[in-house]
């Protein structure tokens, strides 16, 4: 499947998350949206956590978000990260509401702060997996 060598963890794509990763591959950031009650949630689940409806669809997000928190990994829990230490991970709140884990592409900005406005960018990890990351707006 993957033409290029990628030695970091790839998503485990299951029936709940399949749609999300298909959209991501096309560089579209989505959240799960309940057709019945309008609830927006992420990560995806098999039913709406609010009303339990099965009628879930993918809603394209604006790609705008705010920074909630960030950390710097000095330890490689996977071998593929050994040469990249330290690397960052962040927590962002999408304009649509859900909190998601991501990375600050290009590193942690010098003027980093909680509430910093961000926008999504996509990294093509393999031929089939693209990963949403964020940069300062």
């Amino acid at each position, binding site marked *: 499947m993957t033409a290029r060598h990628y030695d*970091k*963890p*790839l*998503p*485990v794509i299951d029936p709940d*998350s399949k749609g999300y990763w298909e959209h991501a591959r096309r560089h579209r950031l989505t959240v799960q949206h309940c057709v019945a009650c309008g609830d927006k949630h*992420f*990560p995806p689940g098999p039913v709406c*956590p609010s009303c339990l409806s099965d009628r879930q669809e993918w809603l394209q997000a604006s790609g705008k978000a705010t920074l*909630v*928190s*960030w*950390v*710097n*990994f*000095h*330890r490689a*829990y*996977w071998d593929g*990260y050994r040469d990249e230490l*330290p*690397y960052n*991970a962040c*927590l962002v709140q999408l304009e649509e509401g859900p*909190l998601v*884990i*991501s*990375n600050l592409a290009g590193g942690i900005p010098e003027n980093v*702060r*909680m509430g910093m406005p961000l926008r999504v960018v996509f990294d093509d*990890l393999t031929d089939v*997996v693209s*990963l949403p*990351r964020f940069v300062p707006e």
Partner: protein
Amino acid sequence: MNPMNRLKDKVAVVGVGTTSYGSFPEMTDYGLAAQAFKAALADCGLAKDRIDGLGTCRIPYYARMGEVLGLDPRWTLHTPGHGRMSGMSIMEAVLALEAGAADYVALLYTNIGRSRRVNYGGEDSAGFWDPWGFTSPGAAHALMFRMHMERYGTTTRQLAEIPVAFRRHAALHPDAVMKEPFTIEQHERARPIVEPLRLLDYCLINDGAVCIILTTAERARDLRQPPVLISGLGARDAFRRSAIANFDPEFWYPEAQDVAQQVYGMAGVGHGDIDAFMCYDNFAPTVLFSLEGLGFCERGESGRFVEDGALGLGGRLPTNTDGGHLSNSYMQGWALNVEAVRQLRGECGDRQVPNCEVVQYVAVTPCTRSIIYTRG
């Protein structure tokens, strides 16, 4: 009104047993647990065959445990090796004893994480956020502590007060794994793991086992040790916000507030009555979240609360007098509950809290539990 109020003082801890803590690659889970079980039986003077309730936590197979110990209980509880399960198991035992499902419950916990080189991240615990390189409970707590710093101005020097205090306690505890004291400055220079957290903010990973034997307060009178009563219980889970494992954007504050109301209300005590505090410390920031959530200080004030050795012996709130998970032993809450019992019995030697009458245990996690123990 806590609907569990009628359980106040109905159940007692009558026997506790702990093994040495360290690295025991030559032992099995069952072998270590058997040592703790024998120690707890000897502690309370109960004959083995009286045990008719068995709880196993982090032990691979409950039936093998029963086989090893020669037990055919009429109540069995099996829980995974998550820190929150200690308080949960003790609560379940209280309910079982009060309902008559068992007369004497032995709760057993074994951890061979050290010898097995458990990583607590990466391939050991696959999760949805792995593709972003985000993994491990420590990283989740680093995210939360960063938020605490940003929201309230809390500093890493304030955070350091917690591991510094617990290490001092460990130095007074013969069984503790890490006894070498360190200063706030040394904490500031320690190896970063997931910043803003450093090595000294992380719990240990070591081997060991714990056994706690409980029975009804009535039956407890006939046993060897003065009973330690379970006077308060509080419980609330937060699963709706649990999409990131071991993380909560509110630091479980609403749940801890709910638990505080339950546990203090049931025990009929307040913050000022707590002589010693046993606080689940998987990572140093959890202690801050616990102090705020239970109401020992206002929200956002925990950094200032812990300054100047407030958590040390002789301080405002002696906390984790055995050294906790940061310095004594990573027994996932079980050893902290044993320490509560030993403090109330007055068995703690150099680290004894004088006139200790009320001890509170808490684990602020996606399943927050608190227990208030009193002298029977």
